């Protein structure tokens, strides 16, 4: 009860600031929090990263094994992306099978990577129809303060770019870097009342009405989009979100070696 009164107050506070064009932490509406990216943080993975955006932190690992391709893509490696909202990261996350939130998150991150054709899956074919590299991109959220879509995407992209294909250990010649073609970056815009803002904190997400995640490639072309939450977006807001994603994507892309 006490808690929900505080929530009410906080909600009003955020709304009032937004109406004045301000945010709780003083950022501009199109300003991203401080980003830190570390790679090769886990030796047992072929590639890994630990990414912080503000107080949101994720760890991502890429594991590669040799396996069979899908029958409809016999000459392509396989990609499997999974995000886990473990209870370590938030008092509101629970153990157990994935809930709709984490499934949507996994699938949106997956689409950004898959549809940008970031990983050159044809180069991960060993023997057409028989043997290909299987890539497991596993994302664990360690600390949750909003904007998981962008944090997880960034972590996944950084981990993939750092990965070394373990050819030697599998008797397939020398190791070589993961073959990649581009660096897809997702930027999420949040609608609160009639305003848009990027890289939302958890508090901002709690009062949001709609969300639009836009993933662009190195050319600024669209590769994946996902509108979420039960609000409606005007066509103008959709276009603003796309334009912002393209613009910020250029900056964020530079952070990834």
């Amino acid at each position, binding site marked *: 009860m006490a808690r929900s009164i505080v929530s009410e107050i906080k909600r009003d506070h955020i709304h009032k600031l937004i109406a004045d064009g301000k945010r709780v932490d003083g950022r501009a509406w199109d300003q991203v929090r401080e980003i830190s990216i570390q790679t090769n943080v886990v030796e047992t993975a072929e590639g890994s990263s630990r990414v912080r955006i503000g107080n949101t932190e994720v760890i991502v690992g890429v594991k590669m094994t040799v396996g069979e391709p899908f029958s409809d893509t016999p000459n392509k490696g396989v990609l499997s992306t999974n995000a886990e909202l473990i209870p370590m990261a938030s008092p509101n996350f629970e153990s157990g099978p994935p809930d709709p939130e984490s499934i949507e998150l996994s*699938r949106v991150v997956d689409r950004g990577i898959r549809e940008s054709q970031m990983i050159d899956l044809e180069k991960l074919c060993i023997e057409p129809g028989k043997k290909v590299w299987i890539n497991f991109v596993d994302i664990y959220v360690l600390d949750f303060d909003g904007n998981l879509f962008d944090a997880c995407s960034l972590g996944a992209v950084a981990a993939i770019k750092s990965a070394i294909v373990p050819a030697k250990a599998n008797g397939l010649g020398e190791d070589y870097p993961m073959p990649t073609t581009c660096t897809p970056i997702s930027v999420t815009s949040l609608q609160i009342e009639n305003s848009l803002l990027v890289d939302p904190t958890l508090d901002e997400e709690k009062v949001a009405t709609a969300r639009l995640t836009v993933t662009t490639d190195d050319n600024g*072309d669209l590769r994946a989009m996902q509108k979420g939450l039960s609000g409606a977006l005007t066509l103008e807001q959709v276009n603003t979100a796309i334009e912002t994603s393209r613009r910020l994507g250029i900056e964020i892309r530079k952070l990834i070696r």
Partner: protein
Amino acid sequence: MGGNSDMKLIDENGIRIDGRKIDEIRPMKIEAGVLKSADGSAYVEIGKNKVLAAVYGPRECHPRHMQNPAKAIVQCKYNMISFSVSDRKRPGPDRRSVEISKLISEAMEYVVFTENYPRTSIDVYIEVLQANAGTRCAGLVAASVALADAGIPMKDLVPAVAVGKVNDQVVLDLNKEEDNYGQADLPIAMIPRTGEVLLMQMDGHLTQAEFDKALEMGVKACQEIYDLQKDALRRRYAIVNAEAEEETREPTEDVNEEA
């Protein structure tokens, strides 16, 4: 998106493999009130897609902890029956249908006047009987008609359609072959009265110019579909009224629990 643009899916006259033009939707059939047990229902065919939607509620919300004291919650479950696709699908929800269910629930929550029914749940069950690309849009179309058939007050009906890119051209309402071998897919759902976007997903590859064109096509098609939805409801009301009149004339001796 296969991204394989080698396969010729549009001929030199701009005609697609199923005979449609670039900006033409597939033949569509909508029928409201097709099931007896449900409070509202609808059947939709779009090309070779066949989709049923049923609504139960507003009714007591289970489990309790999901109740919202201020409004109803809208829970949509999208499901493909096992034989609706080429390779048999194991019964039960997969990750794809969990995501689609979430998105449809969010969209429907926006249009229903949920404040009218605090603490209740409005449950929408969407079953895809036969799938041929575009089932999430077909499901949305069916869901909002079924909600209206159940007599639940709504801001508007929700038309939906997917636009896509095939052979480097933007085309409306992809069929299965176009979906499999196309270059982009952009399903959208609209609020016709305000022109706002309620659902939007995209995957594949679109330049800004292509996106603009696709969005324009989609918005226009949603208006067409909206008209078909309203038609279906008009036909349904006509039948219901006729039945009601008849019932007034010949009362049955049935003891009706729900009455």
